[in-house]
């Protein structure tokens, strides 16, 4: 499995990280080094083995489905790069 420039560009797009065209070949090469290392997993016989979902065998706790916290819009917005009139502001999304 070898990653080319186009695949690297596609992955960067999916990850929403801008990568300039001239940086793509080096990135693809790094991916190939890492994936080459990961390929070893192919040697392991995993027939009939369950993929791990939880490292400690424990049932998730349940609680009443009710609001426990809230009513603090100023705190929620206090770190926003751009907040207006009680909302997060972003560039226009819908034309």
């Amino acid at each position, binding site marked *: 499995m070898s990653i080319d420039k186009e695949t690297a560009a596609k992955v960067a797009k999916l*990850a*929403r990280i801008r990568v300039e065209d001239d940086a793509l070949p080096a990135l693809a090469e*790094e991916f190939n080094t890492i994936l080459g*290392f990961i390929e070893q997993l192919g040697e392991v016989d995993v027939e009939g083995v369950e993929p791990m979902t939880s490292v400690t065998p424990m049932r998730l706790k349940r609680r009443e489905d009710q609001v426990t916290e809230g009513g603090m819009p100023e705190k929620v917005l206090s770190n926003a790069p751009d907040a207006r009139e009680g909302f997060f502001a972003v*560039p226009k999304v819908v034309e």
Partner: protein
Amino acid sequence: MTDLNKLTIAAARDALRKGDVTSAELTEACLTRVEGAGALNAFVHDTSDLARTQAKAADERIKGGDAPAMCGIPLGIKDLFCTKGVESQAASGILDGFKPEYESTVTQNLFDAGAVMLGKLNMDEFAMGSSNETSVYGYAVNPWKVDGRELTPGGSSGGSASAVAADLCLAATGTDTGGSIRQPAAFTGITGIKPTYGRCSRWGIVAFASSLDQAGPMTKDVRDAAIMLEAMCGHDPKDSTSADIPVPDFEAMLTGDIKGKVIGIPKEYRMDGMPEEIEKLWADGTAMLKDAGAEIRDISLPHTKYALPAYYVIAPAEASSNLARYDGVRYGHRAKLEQGDGITEMYEKTRAEGFGHEVQRRIMVGTYVLSAGFYDAYYNRARKVRTLIKRDFEQVFDQGVDAILTPATPSAAFGLGEMVDADPVQMYLNDVFTVTVNLAGLPGISVPAGLDKQGLPLGLQLIGRPWEEGDLLNTAYALEQAAGFVAKPEKWW
């Protein structure tokens, strides 16, 4: 009393209780040392005003007579912990200026016990790294030095390790996803324990790989690790993976008596090309535990070789999901946009500017292994291998093994900048002995056990049964007593 900053937690606690010293005095001694240690770049956010306020409150409480062990103890806090009203950036540019409105459960637990926060500590960006070289603040430096070369304190909890080894604080918090407490502890000659997954609440700790992340203490000795761990852990309804089981008095379990305990020596940890010194340290440690009355048993953990590759699928996959939240909308950095840029450009530019290279690389590797067509081949296969790695440990524990002894790292601390041209996999190999423990959710502790021929500290790792940190700490205590490691770095900073 001189050099209050050099005290252990236990010694400071006893002195505080006797009234021989105040928390205000301890705190000032540490703050003075922090100020003079800019060259180590361990502390990156100053909270001295808060520290003085906390110290004063602690002194009042101690006078009252029923203060817990951590009351009045000055600590450094890793930048990964959200601390209310104080910069908490995970050493990343993308969280530039972020001041949480809330406190992480672990730091809250420590503050409830009366602990004092001196400041926030350097680390690798989002805890991704083994040398503290990926930090937006620049490297933290190891107080141990050889031939004038500046060495890495390890990572990701590099600032924590450097600060404790240089006696800038009595102890520090760390977090460990693949070895980030134990490897820096070994590189700086201090003690660090990663408890069982679920012991410490992850709430308010910036997430890297949620199924692997655990907080733990980094301290000057094993007794301090026991005292501080107890204060950090406990059930938290805000973390659904936090264990609702009692926390024992770990310190009371330090008897040093390990007669009849079975210590496993896993043959798979004897790697090709392992330096002779590491090999010897491991043999010496084995002999010490044997002399202390333990039974030594050769064991096999057959899937060890596959732990690192499995980790480098699972951790980036979880990171790519966890770090999707950094989008320039709710907190931290947002890129300046050009005319006509929409929301997608905002995301892409913000993340390209805000994340460093290693973090970007891991997010993208994670995105790739989770993408359609590769999910089964990479991610699901890695999770199956993880099941097998955990099973290896369960089988040896079922056969009566109480703890497993291994080297903590494949080498002593290396020079800062020396790995710049190496491929990323070379850097990942630092975690070869520690990463299995995170994948299996087990407790693991690194104990300083000797010096190499350059005079740099080396650590041994003990791995325990799940939830048996008390027993593990006791074995570590016996090893510490036998190893008698007392070397300290010579002050140059």
